[in-house]
């Protein structure tokens, strides 16, 4: 990996965390490992591997819900560095996932630091309001916090991408086959947590049985996700109609 490529990955990580390019859309796109992995692949000249690794890492975070500023992990950093490791180090997808997730946990430190330090700029905004300098509020709202965010995100990601890839590859080679085997097993299990997190929000009441319906359709009929998606849409419509019909009788 060249210095320039590592710098681009640093900028990519900043963009995933920033609101400047795409506003809240960035959080739903660049921040996701599927897209982050793809863009990392573009930077490193192997978009196909980037997409495949990014997709697998993203599974882990598919149920990622940020409510009230609490994060279960920094999937943006996990996606970028995971894809970079897989491409430059030739790691298996599952092994890249198992390494990417702890990286994501370290990444949450940046998030806590950012949310704590940003409070300072909120007070700066108060000062501008107090002085009647409404034209300067953008400095406290965007310029300073985003400059700080750039320093906090781009530099660590650049360093990790540039120095980390070779180091981790060497460490895994030195540890040998068992470690890699265990990493692959763990990587295969991890999406269960991502799915479990989403279930917290939607596995409720009468909808629960449909979780098992979807599972059985995929296990016994080998249906693709898209096929299950369309069946799910039809089931949801039929179910709602039946429920309304029943409600109507009860009222009459």
């Amino acid at each position, binding site marked *: 990996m060249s210095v320039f490529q590592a710098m681009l990955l640093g900028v990519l990580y900043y963009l995933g965390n920033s609101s400047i390019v795409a506003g809240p859309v960035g959080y739903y*796109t660049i921040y996701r490992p599927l897209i982050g992995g793809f863009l990392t692949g573009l930077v490193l000249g192997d978009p196909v591997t980037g997409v495949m690794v990014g997709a697998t890492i993203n599974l882990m975070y598919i149920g990622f819900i940020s409510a009230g500023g609490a994060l279960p992990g920094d999937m943006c950093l996990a996606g970028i560095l995971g894809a970079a490791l897989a491409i430059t180090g030739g790691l298996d997808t599952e092994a890249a996932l198992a390494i990417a997730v702890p990286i994501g946990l370290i990444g949450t430190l940046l998030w806590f630091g950012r949310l704590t330090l940003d409070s300072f700029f909120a007070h700066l905004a108060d000062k501008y309001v107090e002085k009647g300098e409404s034209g300067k509020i953008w400095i406290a709202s965007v310029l300073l916090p985003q400059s700080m965010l750039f320093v906090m995100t781009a530099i660590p990601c650049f360093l990790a991408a540039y120095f980390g890839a070779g180091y981790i590859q060497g460490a895994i080679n030195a540890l040998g086959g068992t470690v890699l085997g265990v990493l692959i097993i763990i990587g295969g*299990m991890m999406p269960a947590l991502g799915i479990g997190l989403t279930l917290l929000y939607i596995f409720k009441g009468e909808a629960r049985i449909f*979780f098992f319906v*979807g599972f059985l359709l995929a296990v016994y009929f080998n249906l693709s996700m898209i096929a299950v998606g369309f069946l799910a849409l039809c089931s949801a419509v039929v179910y709602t109609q039946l429920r309304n019909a029943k409600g109507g009788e009860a009222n009459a």
Partner: protein
Amino acid sequence: MPDMIHKENKKANEGSYILLTDKEVKRSWINWLFNNQANYNYERMMGTGFLHSMVPIAKKLYKDDIEKQRDMLKRHTGFFNCEPCLGSAIAGLTVAMEEQKAAGGEIDGEAVTSIKTGLMGPLSGIGDSIIQGVIVPLLLAFAIDMASGGSVVAPIVYSLVMIAVVFGISYTLFMTGYKKGSGAILNILENGIVNKIIAGANIMGCMVLGALVANYVSMSCGIQIQQTADSVFNVQEQLFDTIIPKLLPLLLTLGSYKLLKKGWSSVKVLLFIVIIGVIGGVTGILG
């Protein structure tokens, strides 16, 4: 709180574009859309972003009166936190209320603040469960399915759809909040349609997640039992695969869900999975 809002609603509902033009209203929406989390912080969360979205409005409404401009902006320096797409409706509504206040309407500053904070919770609840709980996981599930075969189109299509969804919802709700007032937002909240959409979305989400478990969680038993000298009983292939092939991934997912529901943090569940993986991998129980 709803009663309060209903009472204020009468005042907040009378027309729009009295003093403002389309230019400031759109500017305010853009400021909200792009900057709501630019200075996300523990003390006020999206407070600074909300303040930023009110700047073009204050400048237009109180063009020559720095004093009044300051009073208006001061109201919006406080805490604000909402799901950003649905929170857009609150920003639009606040613009309408501030405009009527400036035009001499009987709205006091406290009413603006209380409507704003009263709507933040319910709208976040709906927004988080529909957007982050269903729309994003569903679209990602389809995109990941395409992408794991190496399709570079998948992330591009997913991003385009997501951009359309976020911009569409955010703009529509901002303008609904601005033009139709708090009544329209309360109608949305109290209308049965939202509940029907949530119920339907939950069903879709559950079914797709079930299929995801089968396709993407992998866990298999590596135990082989020596039956006779030359026949081996492979637990995974000859027991699980013949009855329910993906039973272990299903149990692992439901187990993670139960632990999370019991109040375990996601990091704790993650460590739990790592421990099972290490023990299972080293002993050969998992393989």
